[in-house]
């Protein structure tokens, strides 16, 4: 078997970063033996002859005499039959990115590509209370009770709000009510979920991907496998934590829109959701739900099935680049083999998307 072996600019001192190629002693096509001088290099401190590590044939000359070459960068490539120790030969050619939307779609599916950016209501500028000074405990307590720090009179040094100042202001009853309602809703959802026959699968994937990719990949997997007569579209709900509790904005057919557009939409929506301002149009129509636990540095959790949804996915952090993906399926809609196939497809799509 033949091996391509790039002969590199050698490191000749602790601080050396680059050297100059003085000249070649060989040309393309030359047969060389181990120890033959291939080329000469120099730095301000040392001159050196670089020898062939093994017998072989010169395949190509990469640099030109007089060139400045960084340490470790190839100067020429030779072909040898002997495996020349363990080297990392550097990057293969960069593969072009293919978005799921560009993979083969049927004409009918293409027609549904109607995801134009939704007009979203303007978000209030950075909440004014961030420019108010308050002791840490007061700030935390105010956030918990929904008190706007701008309504509190500071009496501490440097106009800083103290705990005593905060206690003069009573918490906003409407805020407390909304938070309670959210919590009750989630609890009810969990209870309903318990009644559905379901099962969960888990896989690990080594990949980097953002939430937009996560959303789009899952949608495209579902599109490939679901029964589209029952559902004219795919609606992916993303769980976002806001000051009031959980928000679940829904992205319709995210795999059919251009990836950059989706990315912008996802970022903007998450930002608004954090402030409790998800547009009404995005609050309904979920056919599946995603929860990204890795934001909380969490590992895994069993995904919950939401009412009228047949699938639910969580992604958690294992360590470094390894993520754990879990899929729960409603056994009335899918069987075990479907579930396995869906998860494998998702893992494949995520791995591919991060290369």
């Amino acid at each position, binding site marked *: 078997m033949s091996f391509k072996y790039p002969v590199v600019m050698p490191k000749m001192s602790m601080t050396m970063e680059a050297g100059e190629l003085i000249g070649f002693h060989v040309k393309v096509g030359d047969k060389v033996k181990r120890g033959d001088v291939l080329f000469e290099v120099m730095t301000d401190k040392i001159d050196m002859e670089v020898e062939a590590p093994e017998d072989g044939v010169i395949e190509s000359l990469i640099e030109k005499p007089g060139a400045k070459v960084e340490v470790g960068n190839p100067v020429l490539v030779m072909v040898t039959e002997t495996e020349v120790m363990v080297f990392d030969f550097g990057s293969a050619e960069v593969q072009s990115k293919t978005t799921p939307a560009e993979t083969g779609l049927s004409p009918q599916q293409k027609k549904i590509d109607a995801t134009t950016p939704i007009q979203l209501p303007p978000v209030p500028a950075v909440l004014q209370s961030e420019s108010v000074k308050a*002791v*840490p*405990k*007061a*700030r*935390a307590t105010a956030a918990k009770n929904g008190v706007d720090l701008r309504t509190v009179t500071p009496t*501490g*040094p440097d106009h800083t709000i*103290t*705990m*005593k100042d905060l206690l003069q202001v009573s918490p906003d009853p409407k805020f407390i009510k909304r938070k309670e309602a959210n919590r009750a809703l989630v609890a009810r959802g969990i209870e309903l979920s318990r009644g559905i026959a379901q099962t969960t699968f888990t896989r690990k994937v080594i990949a980097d991907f953002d939430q937009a990719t996560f959303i789009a990949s899952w949608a495209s997997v579902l599109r490939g496998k679901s029964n589209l007569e029952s559902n004219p579209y795919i609606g992916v709900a993303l769980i976002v934590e806001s000051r009031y509790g959980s928000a679940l904005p829904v992205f319709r057919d995210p795999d059919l829109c251009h990836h950059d557009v989706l990315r912008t939409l996802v970022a903007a929506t998450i930002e608004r959701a954090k402030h409790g301002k998800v547009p009404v149009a995005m609050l309904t129509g979920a056919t599946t739900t995603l929860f990204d636990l890795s934001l909380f540095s969490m590992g895994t959790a069993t995904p919950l099935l939401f009412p009228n949804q047949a699938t639910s996915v969580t992604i958690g952090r294992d360590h470094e680049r390894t993520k754990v993906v879990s899929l729960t399926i409603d056994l009335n809609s899918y069987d075990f083999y479907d579930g396995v196939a869906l998860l494998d497809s998702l893992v494949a799509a995520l791995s591919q998307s991060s290369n």
Partner: protein
Amino acid sequence: MSNNRMLTMAEAIREAMSIALDERPEVFLLGEDVGIYGGAFGVSGDMYHRYGAERVLDTPISELGIVGAAVGAALSGMRPIVEIQFSDFTAQAMDQIANQAAKIHFMLGGALHVPMVLRTPQGSGTGAAAQHSQNLEIWFASVPGLKVVVPSNPADAKGLLLAAIDDPNPVIFLEHKLLYKSPGIDPVPEGSTRIPLGVSKIVREGGDVTIVATGIMVSRSYQACKTIATEGISVELIDPRTITPLDMKPIFESVEKTGRLIVVQEGPAHAGFINEVIAQVTGSPSFGSLIAPIRRLAGLNIPIPYAPQLEHAAVPQVEDIEAAVRKIVADWQ
């Protein structure tokens, strides 16, 4: 088994060393004037007469040489206690302390270790002026591989020193000159009991303010606390005792209880140990419990001056600590 045995810091340290020399034949003491003279501050006392020249070695004035010899002896199976007469002179021996002792276990992949204790007096208040009065715990705390102990009273000194001698790593044991003759508040237990390194002590419980103090600032803070208590303010006083390893848990819990934190050290504020405590609290969940900014009391950023009124003004005193507590409570309700 409690008794009323009050010992001075010097006596307690001598007792710990004697117990160690009795228990383990590989322990020995070396240093300048530790033998016949009995130690520059009288700490080794009569040990030379009790243990002989083989185990209590008088050395020439060669800090680098004797600390290096301690390292070499420790590598070969002995457990030396090396006394450096003033903490300021550890500077002469820094290569052997920081580049050798601290790093050998790590650099050599665990093949060798250095079980030695370096004892040295630090601190100001004796009119010894700039080159004989420094607080240098931060020098050693900033070098990974050294354990750093700062005892504040005789009972702790005895227990901590015994634990330090047991420890298979290099331990820097920083005593305070002004405390050598002081009996402290608590009696010193008899026998061979150790106080583990890396355990902070809650000296006094309270609910309004947390004080974290080291060395001689512990007793000064304690005095301040007693006065302040009569004014209706209750202060919780914590003594970390060891700087490396540092036990932050009681400190976090205390901050969550009181919401107000004052840290006190004798050495200069700039880049000192208290800043480590402050950084850890600020970066921890207990940050959200603070109802006041964290205050620090420390020495001025100057070499220690000679004249007594100047020396007094250079480091925190009891009245400074009292004033700080009153102010933090008044300003931050």
